[in-house]
Structures are given as structure tokens and as C-alpha cells.
């Protein structure tokens, strides 16, 4: 029976058995106890924050190099956001910057372990490390700081389905979504695990957080028309759950194919000149390469030239969050987070999907190397 026929057969279009079955298997895939299917990755972040105890008036610290959903979720939970810069090599949260923030850009709040953000005057109650491009952030030091300062850790795992990180503290590999207080996943169609429309999930080992997310996604209903709290409409459609459940069985294989493709790009580019910054994978990280992102100086020019040869590329993301028009009232300035700003000016996402062919990758790398070689004399002159 097709997914659609199955949904019609159960007559449960929203929530229901198909959602539960997917939730159980996705929790197992992420090596967590609970999974709560929701409407989108943004809702997953918002519900995880609220269920993990973030209250209106709190501050949540994250990175400025992410999709806007990360900060939207914080604002929609009623909290203020603060930023710490990224590690320029991995594009994920720099734990030393987090430490410097908690130590220097916050003040002690009496006897409590909690600190108060100097910028917003709000108590810092959570941190959101973003596992960008399919690679997990350096979680050990982030978790240590979170324990020290009593912060909930919400992993933004919207690009990291199946990514792994070797925890030295625990001496074992941990999956994205299983290492923090809770994690948010997006199943946007283009993701490593993508629906045929909007979808997302929260994973957690904490039963209270899971229960909170289940209430929040369904208007705060504990039973039909009994609303314990005000919630949202953030449920997962059965048809999405059915599609995701079928696709989940292929996810490990698809992630392996992405790894092969990333390795092939690495090898093809290895012979080229030094104008290109290749993705950096530190020891103890097993990314799932949602995106294959290179750094290059004349990014926009290269992008236009590749487009003229039929090669589509993306930019994730061209404007760091602190410089978005939406946040103009926060009075951030260029230079506040130099690593994020440098990355935003240089990153270019190359074609990446499991079925990408070796000859397509050879075509892409050749086109890029040809452009870089022809601009090389100009680059030398600039440097001279």
C-alpha cells in the first residue's frame, strides 16, 4: 500500500499511529529515548526551548552564523538572544568564545550559578549550538560550560541527521540529537531526511521535555478540548510521517553516499591551488555532509560563472544573523562577530546529494579550478 493509501485507511491525517511509529524509529536512529514529531524545524526549536524551561525574559546564547529560524525560535519563546562567534574552520560555535561570553559579557546573579547577559539584562538559561552543514559542534566543552552555568543545551540539529561526535568525556561516539537536553530536527524536503512538505521533530532523553513538547505542538491539549496551557499548532501530518518513515530506512545509506561524494570532492580539489578553503573535519567528528561548503574570496563572481555553465550553487548564509535588517534595533555592528562575517562573505555550497555522479563532481571541480586558475594572476597582484 502506498503512504497515501495507508493514511486514508487509518483516517488519521494529523498525528496518530503513523506519526507514533515514525517517532519511535527516529528516536532509535538518534539513540534517544523520545522523539516528538512537529510541523517544522523552527517549531521543534521553539518547543524544545520552552519545554526545557526557557521563560519569557530569559536570554539564550547561540551563533550568528545560522538560518534565521534559530533566533526566531528564541524570540518566539519570548526570550532574548545573544551571540558568540564561530570557529572559522568548522563554522560551528567556538567554545572559547562561549566561555568568554559567560565570563565577560555576563554578570553573576547572586549565589546562583546562572549569569545575566549584560547586553539584554536577562538571565542566560540556555545555549543553542548549531550543527551546521551536517557537522556537530564541539560539544564536550560546550556541555561542560552548560553544566557549570546551569544552562539547558538545545542542539540545532536541523542539518545533522545522523552526524556523530566522539565525546572524550564519555569515551564514545554520540549522535546528533542525543547529547544535549533536547534537539531540533528539520525534515524540510532538501534535508538528508526530508518530507514532501514541512516537517520537524524534537528528540530528548528527558521525559518532561518530551511531554512539554507534545502539549505545545497540539494547542496545549492534555485531552480533547482540555487545554492545560496555551500551545501552538505544530503537529506532524500523518502523510509526512509516512513518507519520512519509509525514507528513514535509507538514511544511513544516503549519508554514506554523501560521505563518499564529500571525499571525492576533497580528492578532486586536493591538486588545485590554495585559493579554495575545503570543509574541515576535525578528529572525533563524523559529519553527514548535508552541504559541501567551500570558502573562496571572489565568491559571488565565481557563483555567477558557475551558473552560466549550468552549475547551481547556494550560499548558506550570505548575511550573518546579527546584521539582518530584522535585528536592526539590536544595534549590532559589522565587526562584532568577525569569523561569522568573514564566512558569510566567502562560503559557497556546491552541488551535494546522495545520487550526485562522479562525472558531475569532476565537471564542477574542473569548472571551479579553471576559474580560479584564470583569476590567479589577479590574486597574486592583489597580494603583492
Amino acid at each position: 500500500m502506498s503512504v497515501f493509501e495507508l493514511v486514508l485507511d487509518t483516517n488519521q491525517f494529523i498525528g496518530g499511529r503513523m506519526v507514533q511509529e515514525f517517532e519511535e524509529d527516529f528516536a532509535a536512529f538518534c539513540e534517544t529515548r523520545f522523539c516528538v514529531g512537529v510541523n517544522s524545524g523552527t517549531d521543534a526549536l521553539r518547543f524544545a526551548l520552552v519545554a526545557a524551561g526557557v521563560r519569557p525574559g530569559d536570554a539564550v546564547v547561540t551563533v550568528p552564523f545560522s538560518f534565521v529560524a534559530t533566533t526566531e525560535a528564541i524570540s518566539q519563546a519570548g526570550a532574548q538572544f545573544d551571540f558568540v562567534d564561530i570557529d572559522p574552520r568548522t563554522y560551528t560555535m567556538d567554545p572559547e568564545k562561549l566561555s568568554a561570553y559567560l565570563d565577560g559579557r555576563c554578570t553573576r546573579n547572586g549565589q546562583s550559578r546562572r549569569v545575566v547577559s549584560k547586553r539584554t539584562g536577562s538571565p542566560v538559561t540556555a545555549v543553542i549550538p548549531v550543527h551546521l552543514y551536517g557537522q556537530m559542534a564541539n560539544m564536550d566543552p560546550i556541555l561542560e560550560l552548560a553544566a557549570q552555568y546551569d544552562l539547558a543545551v538545545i542542539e540545532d540539529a536541523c542539518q545533522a541527521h545522523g552526524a556523530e561526535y566522539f565525546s572524550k568525556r564519555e569515551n564514545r561516539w554520540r549522535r546528533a540529537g542525543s547529547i544535549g537536553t533536547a534537539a531540533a530536527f528539520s525534515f524540510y524536503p532538501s534535508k538528508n531526511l526530508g518530507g514532501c512538505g514541512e516537517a520537524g521533530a524534537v528528540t530528548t532523553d528527558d521525559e518532561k521535555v518530551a511531554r512539554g513538547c507534545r502539549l505545545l505542538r497540539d494547542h496545549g491539549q492534555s485531552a480533547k478540548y482540555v487545554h492545560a496551557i496555551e500551545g501552538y499548532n505544530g503537529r506532524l501530518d500523518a502523510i509526512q510521517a509516512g513518507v519520512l518513515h519509509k525514507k528513514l530506512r535509507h538514511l544511513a545509506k544516503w549519508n554514506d553516499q554523501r560521505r563518499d561524494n564529500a571525499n571525492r570532492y576533497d580528492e578532486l580539489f586536493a591538486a588545485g591551488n590554495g585559493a579554495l578553503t575545503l570543509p574541515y573535519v576535525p578528529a572525533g567528528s563524523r559529519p553527514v555532509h548535508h552541504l559541501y561548503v567551500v570558502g573562496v574570496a571572489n565568491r559571488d563572481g565565481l557563483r555567477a560563472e558557475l551558473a552560466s555553465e549550468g552549475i547551481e550553487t547556494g550560499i548558506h548564509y550570505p548575511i550573518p544573523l546579527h546584521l539582518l535588517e530584522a535585528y536592526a534595533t539590536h544595534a549590532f555592528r559589522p565587526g562584532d562577530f568577525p569569523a561569522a562575517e568573514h564566512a558569510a562573505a566567502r562560503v559557497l555550497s556546491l552541488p551535494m546529494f546522495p545520487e550526485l555522479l562522479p562525472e558531475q563532481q569532476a565537471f564542477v571541480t574542473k569548472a571551479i579550478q579553471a576559474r580560479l586558475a584564470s583569476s590567479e594572476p589577479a590574486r597574486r597582484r592583489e597580494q603583492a
Partner: protein
Amino acid sequence: MKVSLVDLRAQYLTIKDEIDAAISSVIADSAYIGGAHVEAFERAWAKAAGARHRVSCTNGTDALMIATCALGLRRGDEVITTGHTWISTSAMITQAGGRVVFCDVDPMTFTIDPAQIEARITPRTVGIIPIATFSYYPGKNLGAYGDAGGITTNDDRLAEGCGHVESCGVAAVASS
């Protein structure tokens, strides 16, 4: 004899070919979010509702939330609505930063009683919600096979605002 409160399968069977073809074409085009299929529906729905603009979104709750935000609600602003409705109506006023003012319903029609509205208008009142956003929840008169919703309006600026809120500020709304 078993009689369902609502039998969605019965309706599906009367239009099975059309629905199956629509789903197949979305999948064949890989146009899962927004795109030509959404635009075609929005255009048809605005025409059916007699409005110039239409913004479709994830569900009726979001439709209310987006429309309330696009109105420019500020903290403490009051919005009048009825207590005889689904919780989304009042929840979205609160979540957009406003204060809910309940008005009773006409006992004959179960909809907001216009005679009682005026007494509830204060200098802080910015809107009245007589329930005019649309939910396409599966059990609705026009129901999807999952959550869906929409807003229609004749106000150009409101339509533009709705488009911004709906898509993280990236897109604007198409006009007819």
C-alpha cells in the same frame, strides 16, 4: 449500523482520481513547499472568497497569528473575539502580544453578537476577530490531507505584511 461523525474517506472516494493526480504532480515536480501548485490554489481561493489577496500557510492557527502580526499589534493592544471558538483564536492574540477581550455570541447563530461589541471597544482596541481566517484542517468544509490554512484580504499592505511573516521575511505576496 456504524455512523461516523465525519467520514473523510467517503469524500475522498468521490474525487479519488483528481486527488491522486494532484499528489502525483506535486511529487513529479518536487515542488513541495510553495511554488506553482500553491499559487494556483491561492488564486482560486481568493476568487472564491471574493478577496484581492491571498496568503496560504501551514494551518488556521498560523493564519490567525500571521494576520494579527501583520496588523501591527503592539503589547497591550486589545482584540475582541468570541469565547465560543477553538483556542487558536485567543491563543494567537496572546502570542502576537495582544490582550484578549471576550464578547458573547448570539445564542441563535453562535457567532459574535454585534450588539455587544461596542461596549467592549476601548482606546486600546485594535481589532475584532469574527473568525475570518481559514483552516483547511482535514475535517473542514474544504479540508486538506494534513494541516493547512490561509488568509484573504483586500488590504495591499496587510497582504505584503502577511507574506513577510509567513516566509521568514524572504518573499512577498503575489497580487491578482
